[in-house]
């Protein structure tokens, strides 16, 4: 099997931009995505069988929509839908220069050899544990949004949103427009913290489009009488096997106000929206170096000025290298493709640099905005610490509570790394492979031992990154002989 020139994991803005640039210079490119279509999370398209008039036509989506159209119409890109990249396999001894990806799709498992691999796997919602968060009805705000955006379905009747990321305003508005009732949108941080951006008038001016979009959303919510509150959040989800109400507490100077001042809001769905966590498990499994960033999504992949990871032939772009939004993702994708072209000898250094210059210019301004946004979108750790009560489930897959985890750290003073905590406690060993609890395991452990997150380290990422039917592996094994 001849290796493809470039395999791209993820058909979001980063992956699409990279694919377009790479095929334009003659590379053979395969894009693999678990979803059924291109677009990634920002443009989770309705399936082909559901036709939607004027889908996501707001101005802010225009450039992304154009990118999507161009990518979808480019017949040189090979797409591989509904296919999960399970991991990096050991290299083929006959072709040690190529990497081998392990795939699982509708036809079973297979392997794909590629000279270069770009991981543009995006991110997922940061799921902050709090009492009752494992009750059906409590969802990631991004998950609720995808129901509306892609399935054209309002997944309940009465919604509350709680968190710290402005995305929840957009989702609340989409739910409202779809005919759902939004009871409240709650931001844990005080309004003052969110308005930090006003101290950067130039930056605001350059990103006026986005701010106006948010402004418009706020205006529509206000006109519809939907309360948007700052400095309060959901401290418990209540209900008998299904969400019936949320308990809301105000925060004063970062501390939850006492029990008697708390208020219950009836709802059947809660969208939790505190920032995002990057999907860095594939690069980590391949041995790529990562750094910790509490605001930018946990363990983010280290890249050089060309999106090269520390592993030769492996590149990362988009949210995987730190949450920064779709615009940054697109530019990074393009940069990564230019790096691949350069490293494969298609472009020389001068050509690549010339093509990269405008990309870098756009990136520097976008990056600055993203950094400000990330900073104002995550509450201080103290808020999380109050939510993570002893009885709160820390690891949903294995059913391990915050208290149980803390107890183990007390008992075993030698546990200092995320891996040793995982071994002893089972956190991170379940079906999600630690994608959700890993962030909190790291932060709790760092707190407990008064060490840095870097010293705690990430969980070792193992393949397959998502469980795979053994029958499919066996069928492939028979095929290969």
């Amino acid at each position: 099997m001849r290796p493809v020139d470039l395999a791209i994991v993820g058909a979001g803005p980063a992956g699409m931009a990279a694919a377009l640039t790479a095929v334009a210079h003659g590379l053979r490119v395969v894009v693999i995505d678990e979803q059924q279509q291109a677009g990634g999370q920002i443009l989770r398209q309705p399936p082909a069988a559901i036709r939607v008039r004027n889908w996501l036509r707001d101005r802010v989506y225009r450039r992304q929509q154009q990118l999507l159209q161009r990518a979808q119409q480019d017949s040189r890109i090979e797409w591989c839908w509904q296919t999960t990249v399970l991991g990096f396999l050991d290299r083929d001894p006959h072709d040690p220069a190529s990497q081998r990806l392990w795939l699982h799709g509708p036809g079973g498992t297979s392997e794909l050899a590629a000279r270069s691999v770009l991981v543009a796997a995006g991110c997922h919602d940061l799921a902050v544990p709090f009492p009752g968060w494992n009750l059906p009805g409590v969802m990631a705000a991004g998950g609720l949004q995808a129901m509306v955006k892609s399935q054209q379905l309002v997944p309940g009747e009465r919604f509350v949103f709680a968190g710290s990321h402005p995305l929840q305003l957009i989702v609340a508005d989409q739910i409202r427009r779809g005919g759902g009732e939004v009871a409240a949108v709650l931001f844990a941080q005080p309004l003052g913290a969110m308005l930090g951006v006003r101290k950067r008038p130039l930056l605001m001016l350059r990103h006026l489009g986005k701010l106006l979009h948010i402004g418009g959303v706020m205006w529509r919510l206000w006109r519809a009488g939907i309360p948007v509150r700052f400095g309060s959040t959901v401290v418990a989800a209540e209900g008998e096997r299904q969400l019936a109400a949320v308990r809301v507490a105000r925060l004063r100077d970062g501390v939850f106000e006492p029990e008697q001042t708390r208020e219950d809001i009836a709802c059947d769905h809660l969208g939790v929206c505190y920032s995002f966590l990057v999907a860095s498990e594939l690069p980590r499994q391949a041995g790529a170096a990562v750094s910790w960033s509490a605001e930018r999504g946990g363990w983010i992949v280290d890249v050089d000025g060309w999106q090269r990871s520390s592993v030769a032939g492996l590149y990362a772009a988009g949210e995987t290298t730190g949450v920064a939004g779709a615009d940054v993702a697109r530019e990074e994708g393009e940069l990564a493709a230019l790096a691949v072209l350069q490293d494969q000898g298609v472009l020389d250094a001068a050509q690549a640099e010339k093509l990269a210059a405008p990309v870098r210019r756009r990136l520097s301004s976008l990056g600055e905005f993203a950094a400000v946004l990330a900073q104002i979108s995550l509450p201080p750790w103290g808020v999380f610490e109050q939510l993570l009560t002893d009885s709160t489930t820390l690891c949903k897959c294995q059913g391990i509570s915050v208290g149980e985890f803390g107890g183990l750290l007390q008992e075993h003073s030698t546990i200092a790394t995320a891996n040793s905590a995982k071994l002893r406690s089972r956190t991170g060993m379940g079906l999600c492979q630690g994608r959700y609890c890993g962030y909190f395991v790291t932060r709790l452990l760092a707190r407990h031992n008064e060490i840095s997150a870097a010293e705690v380290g990430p969980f070792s990422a193992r393949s397959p990154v998502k469980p795979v039917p053994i029958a499919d592996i066996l069928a492939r094994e028979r095929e290969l002989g």
Partner: protein
Amino acid sequence: MHSCDVAIIGGGLIGCAAAFYLTRLGKRVIVLESDALNGGASGRNAGSLHFQLEYRLLEYQEQLQDHIAHLVPFTRRAIEQWRGLETLLGEDLELVMHGGIMVAETADQLQRLQQKYEFETRHGMQLELLSRSELRARAPYLDDRVQGALYCADEGHCNPRYLTLAYARAAQRLGAVFHTGSRVHSVQRLRHEWALATVASVAGDAEHGGRADYRCDTILNAAGAWAADVGRLAGVHLPIFPVGLTMNVTEEAPPLVGHLVQHVGRRLSMKQVREGNLLIGGGWSARLPELTGTGSAAARPLYRSVCGNLATAAEVVPALRKLHLLRTWTGVTGVTADQLPLLGEVPQLPRYFVAAGGSGFTFGPTYAELISQLIAAGETAYPIAPFSPARFSHINMFMREAGH
């Protein structure tokens, strides 16, 4: 400068268990571990308690004739020790000794089982040869292709994620000191004592980890697959070699496999742990990492190993086909030149001991207990002379001055 009676290099099962037994015998102990405790083979192994002789040992039956005679009483001691381990350490270790079966599929394999049975029972092991129909009744999860099995009632499994830390905690209560994130990089013989120095490794423990000097009367090299590297720091060759192994685990399943399952002719070990996951291994290799002297440098799984291991397992236990592969992982274990453990004092080096070798989960507690007796009292309750590193003295002929 830290000082102690015994400095143990390596915080795996053997190092931590030795810390426990030695402190119990009144020694002041410091354990130096380059990564985190239990980060090496001890925390990544399959957790099988396999007391039947592994088939690989029988293949060397003739050469090993004398030694095997020693292995049997050793095994009996290990069984006794395991039975009391949860009480001794005061912790639930998910230990089950519900019996293990070593299966055979072909006439040839059946014959090997028969030979093995005769050999081992002659040496005093208690085993039972199960016919096909007996097996059907006792282990209905097996495929029809399985023709018979050798049953050992004491076999089972224990959770390797817990055992080492349980020993460490018990040792800590008795006063043993653990310095993690501390990689030993120099070992010097002074006139009457040993001097060791550590450097910080990446995953450091803020409080203790890092650069420090130690003085001690005795060294115990318990560095597992890295014991040879550590040995060379003191100028001695210890013929133990790193081997990378791959493990597979399924999601949680309802109760299905109620034994430790092994195979007499194929590489397979399988068990179902308390949460319901099936652990599948049996000696399928992984690509070794650059050996960086720490347990966390991961070996890489090999695709052929993952597929081969699962295929073998699914042929023996067909229900596996309905499950999912949740995760694969790898570990690095040490094997010695002659498959027997390295257990004893290194003749070339005064008060320098080593405890390392294969099947070190099943026998780790026993290795640790006996080496501790040797260190503290100069003799052991069971003879371990056949396992002494003295048997490799010839390869250290020219190393004499290197350690000084």
